[in-house]
């Protein structure tokens, strides 16, 4: 396996220009959507089958009339332990040699299990193609020696692309520098490969708690419970089975007359 590639989205450098969002659409030929009124600049409200990079605009009023406007370019996290990949029954979702998670559109049959299995609400079903869609980490580009289109378009290097270990080292320094500058809540999200989901190959630097960005604090891979849940089912099967056996083992019932 090649060295794991990653995208590091440093929200402290993001200016919300949405060049990434548009570059993704353009490169991947995703086409027009009808926007939603979200009450802010953000469009769309969530990832869609045609919006794989989504810049979030979070207004946070602060005391004394001050405020913060948190800008975050969100994307599929390319989880090391990916719920979507675990879920996929067709093998359409595959882990590439670079460690990224990609949906093979020619294989996907549209069962949508992946949609329900992503802890971040990334994968989206497309009713026209009948298949599931999400960021491919620009699979075509990285296999041809190019970085992702979104990273390429970002004017402030808020999205950085490279080998994961290099980027994590960089991000660790950056977060320390920010904390020294007074950004007390600056933190990395998903950089730690010992942490949740085995680490995210698209990880983030946040300026506030994950919850502020609507991100789960401790996302879990949904399949972790499959054994336990199955054992419980088995227990239930035993009980009803025993009940039935008991019922059918009862003799002499037939001797009673019917009361129709």
């Amino acid at each position: 396996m090649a060295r794991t590639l990653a995208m590091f989205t440093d929200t402290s450098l993001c200016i919300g220009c949405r060049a990434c969002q548009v570059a993704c659409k353009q490169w991947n030929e995703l086409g027009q959507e009808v926007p939603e009124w979200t009450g802010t600049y953000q469009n769309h409200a969530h990832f869609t089958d045609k919006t794989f990079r989504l810049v979030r605009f979070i207004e946070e009023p602060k005391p004394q009339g001050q405020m913060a406007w948190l800008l975050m370019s969100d994307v599929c996290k390319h989880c090391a332990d990916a719920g979507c990949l675990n879920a996929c029954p067709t093998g359409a979702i595959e882990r590439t040699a670079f460690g990224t998670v990609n949906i093979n559109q020619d294989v996907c049959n549209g069962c949508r299990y992946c949609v329900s299995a992503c802890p971040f609400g990334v994968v989206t079903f497309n009713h026209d193609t009948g298949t599931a869609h999400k960021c491919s980490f620009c699979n075509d580009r990285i296999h041809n020696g190019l970085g992702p289109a979104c990273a390429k378009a970002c004017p402030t290097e808020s999205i950085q692309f490279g080998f994961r270990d290099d980027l994590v080292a960089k991000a660790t320094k950056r977060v320390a520098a920010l904390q020294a500058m007074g950004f007390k809540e600056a933190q990395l999200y998903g950089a730690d490969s010992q942490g949740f989901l085995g680490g995210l190959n698209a990880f983030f630097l946040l300026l506030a708690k994950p919850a502020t960005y609507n991100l789960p604090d401790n996302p879990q891979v949904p399949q972790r419970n499959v054994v336990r849940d199955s054992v419980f089912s088995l227990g239930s099967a035993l009980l009803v089975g025993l009940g039935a056996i008991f019922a059918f083992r009862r003799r002499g019932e037939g001797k009673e007359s019917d009361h129709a």
Partner: protein
Amino acid sequence: MLKTPGWEWMIVVYFFVGGIAGGAYFTAALADTFGTRRDGTVTRVGYLLALPLVALCGILLIADLGVPTRFMNMLRVFKFWNPMSIGAWGVGIFGLFSVVSAGLSFSERLATLRRGVGLVGMIFGFFLASYTGVLLSTTAQPFWGEARLMGALFLASGASTGMAAVSLVLLLIGGATGEGWRKIRWADRSSMVIELVVLGVFLAALGAAARPITTGHFAPLFWGGLVGAGLLVPLGLDIVAHRVKVVGALSAVLVLVGGFVLRYVVLMSIQS
């Protein structure tokens, strides 16, 4: 921010029908193995009921896919711990067992073979009734993903609805005269009791996470349709008047309604 899969009507029906098919099949198999010869109608009805239902399952499952022609892609891979993957395989294998068992149900000569097949197929019947629950409980969705007993609950419900369906058919074809009728009502009662108990533990374990069904829009349907009309009332009717066939039939119908409501509220409560 989470996304729901959009498993709606077809899947509600699929889950419901799959539960009945599985329940009917294992009831048939158990009756065959552990019952008397007079329980033969139950066995035959169970197997013959499971067959079309599992076929319907297959149709629904395929029809609900975004690209139905690619159903076979499910069989490209086998992921042992993936409910959807083994589910697809499971439905297929169970279908085969249903065909064989249905065929064998007409022959007394091959009873031993039938029992053997039935005992193995029964495992897949149990599987079909419960894997749908585990499928939901291993998603990232709120409520579903937290419901550790979803599979157990679906299984109990599959059993009770399967038995209810078999007893109704018995009544319709006039086979409700024998002791099979009473046995299956008895078994159904026990399943209902088990289902109630599992449901209780299910709700207690979920606590606030069960809110999508216990409060709000879906609450009346859940409490009234499933807990009340679908479990408590038929159980009460059955206990009080299980000797009266019409009452037994009514309670079977209610059990079926309850089984449907369960699938409906569980699937739709967080998807609409």
